[in-house]
């Protein structure tokens, strides 16, 4: 193995891959060779760094220089300047949104985006080469499995997880240790360990990132879980839409088998464990545990009533223990550092850290991992860099289609499982969609309900019919046809669906509606009574008007209008005919004098 004086780390996560990091890596290798540096400098494709907003991301070590939005054409400059002459390419160095501060001489850990983070589940993402098991091993990989198999009893492993206070990261927040205990207590000739990688919440991608950046962490944790509950087989259920994650998992499983970390008689302790991958076709309901297991069995992905719980009768009617990817990503660290180390982080009932996928109206779109109990404000402003274009914060949606919207008054809420539920939302898988003053809350509720109606499997009536009726009411409201009493009808339907739906999908589907009614009832009322959308978002409820004071009569708007709705003489104020206006907004974009506004 050769020692290199510098490492060029290129992000190979899905975000950066879609902005062209694969070509970047090729170019780097080509240019480095051309300059005769191929014996000194190594290029490594890593997992996601989390700051997807700034992708493709390249880090050059030993300096730790963080280059962002690197294009193929920039590679020559980085190679000839930085790698050859030791001069950092300043104009490509990442600069902070909030402070515009470039940190050419700072390490990664000092960038605002990373400063407040504490990475446990994502610790290796962007640091190691996920397709090389040796690098995982170097960062204490498979040491936890070794410790569990050679020096701990099954009970001790379960006890450690129980004491750590780790709760399911997939959404429910059920204590992981209890789940393991129940599965361990079931008696059967065959048990299974399963991993839920069917990440489906709009905007959430932490599971994909772990699988792409650190697949061995999941394999190691599943083997530990297998030992703890007495299972010899594991299944990973992963979406077929995550091709990079699937490919890296396959490579990782192959390497682990080759090293004897999966297979028969691991570490010569007599423990057998192997893992198979099952691809999901992308149905949202298959993230629900019982539906997921049916899908692994090759049946239609529909939930079944519980009990019996999977710990008693799960996959192929055998006891099964199912955890989410992010949950597994914490397990090896807990075994290695002890339950107390983990339990020291977080709040009283929510221990450790949580990964959030920041999206929507926020400067630093990406993945962040913070200790439980970090206030929303820190996540959105200090790490996320605040709202772009100086707009005002309106709400943050957490928990995806099962969660709710939290208004500005709750920005100081420390984020943990219980606080979010108390505030009318939920943790969910950790999607966090930020909304500014231009977002209409009724339309947001409509968007999420549209998603659940689409994804409802149709097995139970409350979800199949109830969510459809709710969507129809919401569509009426945003189209200006809302009626007095609609809000009450929505609330009534929501209550019934929550109480009677078969699985988690239906039981939580009304949450986005309920929470927006709770915090933004006035927006619903404005739509219904005044036929106005306060955010000027709903097309049916707004008109474009030209301010005659500001209009210079440049005719730019009239020329761009596809409907021919704008008329007026040159150098005289123009006007818009509302009956012809298509409300496309093209005129507003074109106007250089700010004369056009929405009312």
């Amino acid at each position, binding site marked *: 193995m050769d020692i290199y004086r510098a490492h060029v780390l290129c992000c190979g996560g899905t975000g950066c891959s879609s902005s062209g990091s694969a070509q970047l890596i090729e170019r780097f290798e080509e240019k480095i060779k051309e300059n005769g540096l191929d014996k000194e400098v190594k290029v490594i494709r890593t997992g996601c760094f989390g700051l997807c907003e700034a992708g493709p991301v390249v880090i050059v070590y030993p300096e730790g220089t963080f280059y962002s939005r690197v294009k193929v054409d920039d590679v020559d400059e980085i190679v000839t300047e930085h790698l050859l002459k030791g001069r950092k390419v300043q104009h490509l160095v990442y600069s902070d949104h909030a402070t515009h501060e470039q940190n050419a001489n700072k390490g990664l850990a000092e960038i605002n985006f990373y400063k407040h983070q504490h990475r446990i589940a994502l610790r290796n993402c962007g640091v190691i080469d996920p397709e090389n098991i040796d*690098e995982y091993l170097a960062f204490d990989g498979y040491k936890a499995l070794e410790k569990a198999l050679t020096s701990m009893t099954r009970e001790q492993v379960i006890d450690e997880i129980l004491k750590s206070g780790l709760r399911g990261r997939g959404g429910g927040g059920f204590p992981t240790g209890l789940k393991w205990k129940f599965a361990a207590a079931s008696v059967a000739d065959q048990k299974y360990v399963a991993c839920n990688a069917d990440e489906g919440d709009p905007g959430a991608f932490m599971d994909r990132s772990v699988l792409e950046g650190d697949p061995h962490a999941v394999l190691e944790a599943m083997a530990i879980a297998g030992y703890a509950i007495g299972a010899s087989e594991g299944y990973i259920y992963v979406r077929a839409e995550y091709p990079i994650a699937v490919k890296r998992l396959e490579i990782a499983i192959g390497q682990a088998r080759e090293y004897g*970390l999966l297979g028969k008689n691991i570490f010569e302790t007599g423990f057998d464990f192997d893992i198979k991958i099952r691809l999901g076709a992308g149905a949202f309901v298959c993230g629900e545990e019982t539906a997921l297991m049916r899908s692994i069995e090759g049946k239609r992905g529909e939930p079944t009533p519980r009990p019996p719980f999977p710990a008693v009768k799960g996959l192929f009617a055998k006891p099964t223990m199912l955890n989410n990817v992010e949950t597994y990503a914490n397990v090896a660290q807990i075994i290695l550092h002890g339950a107390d180390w983990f339990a020291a982080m977080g709040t009283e009932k929510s221990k450790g850290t949580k990964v959030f996928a920041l999206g929507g109206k926020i400067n630093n779109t990406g993945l962040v991992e913070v200790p439980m109990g970090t206030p929303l404000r820190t996540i959105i402003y200090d790490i996320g860099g605040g709202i772009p274009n100086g707009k005002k914060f309106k709400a943050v949606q957490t928990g995806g289609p099962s969660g709710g919207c939290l208004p500005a008054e709750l920005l100081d809420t420390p984020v943990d499982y219980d606080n979010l539920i108390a505030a009318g939302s939920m943790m969910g898988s950790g999607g966090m969609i930020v909304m500014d003053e231009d977002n209409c809350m009724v339309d947001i509720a409509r968007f999420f309900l549209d998603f659940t109606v689409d994804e409802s499997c149709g097995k139970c009536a409350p979800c199949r019919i109830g969510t459809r009726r709710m969507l129809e009411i919401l569509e009426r409201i945003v189209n200006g046809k809302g009626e007095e009493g609609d809000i009450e009808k929505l609330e009534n339907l929501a209550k019934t669906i929550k109480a009677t739906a078969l699985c988690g999908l239906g039981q939580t589907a009304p949450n986005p509606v309920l929470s927006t009614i709770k915090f933004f009832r006035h927006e619903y009322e404005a739509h219904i009574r005044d036929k106005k959308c306060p955010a000027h978002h709903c097309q049916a409820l707004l008109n474009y008007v030209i301010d005659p004071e500001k209009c210079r009569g440049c005719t730019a708007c009239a020329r761009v209008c596809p409907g021919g709705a704008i008329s007026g003489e040159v150098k005289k104020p123009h006007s818009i005919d509302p009956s012809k206006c298509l409300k496309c907004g093209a005129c507003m974009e074109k106007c250089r004098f700010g004369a056009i506004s929405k009312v």
Partner: protein
Amino acid sequence: MKSLAELQAIREKTLNRINLRKEDEAEATRVVIGMATCGIAAGARPVMLAFMDEISKRGLNHVTVSQTGCIGMCRLEPMVDVILPGQEKVTYVHMTPEKVGRVVAEHIVNGRPVEEYTIGAAEK
């Protein structure tokens, strides 16, 4: 199939190879020398060699010496940054191999920057 000892050997070997990627610099003191054309022309190479010599003589293996490019004040070259863990970076200017001994002894070993060699003193 690898034995536990073999795995440990792989760990150590790989760690050596990727150590420079660890950002855990809490313990490390860094000496960064400007080695662009201007720095080299002004005599940065003998300064760097003097640092490496002095550091290895004293067995200070927590100190790393690295190069950097031009930061634009070419008239002050050779420039050297000394960064002690948890402290502000100190920039020395117009460095010579003769000055290196004092910087290592007073600043790196005893934690007292040599004020008169710093950029602050030169710019007064």
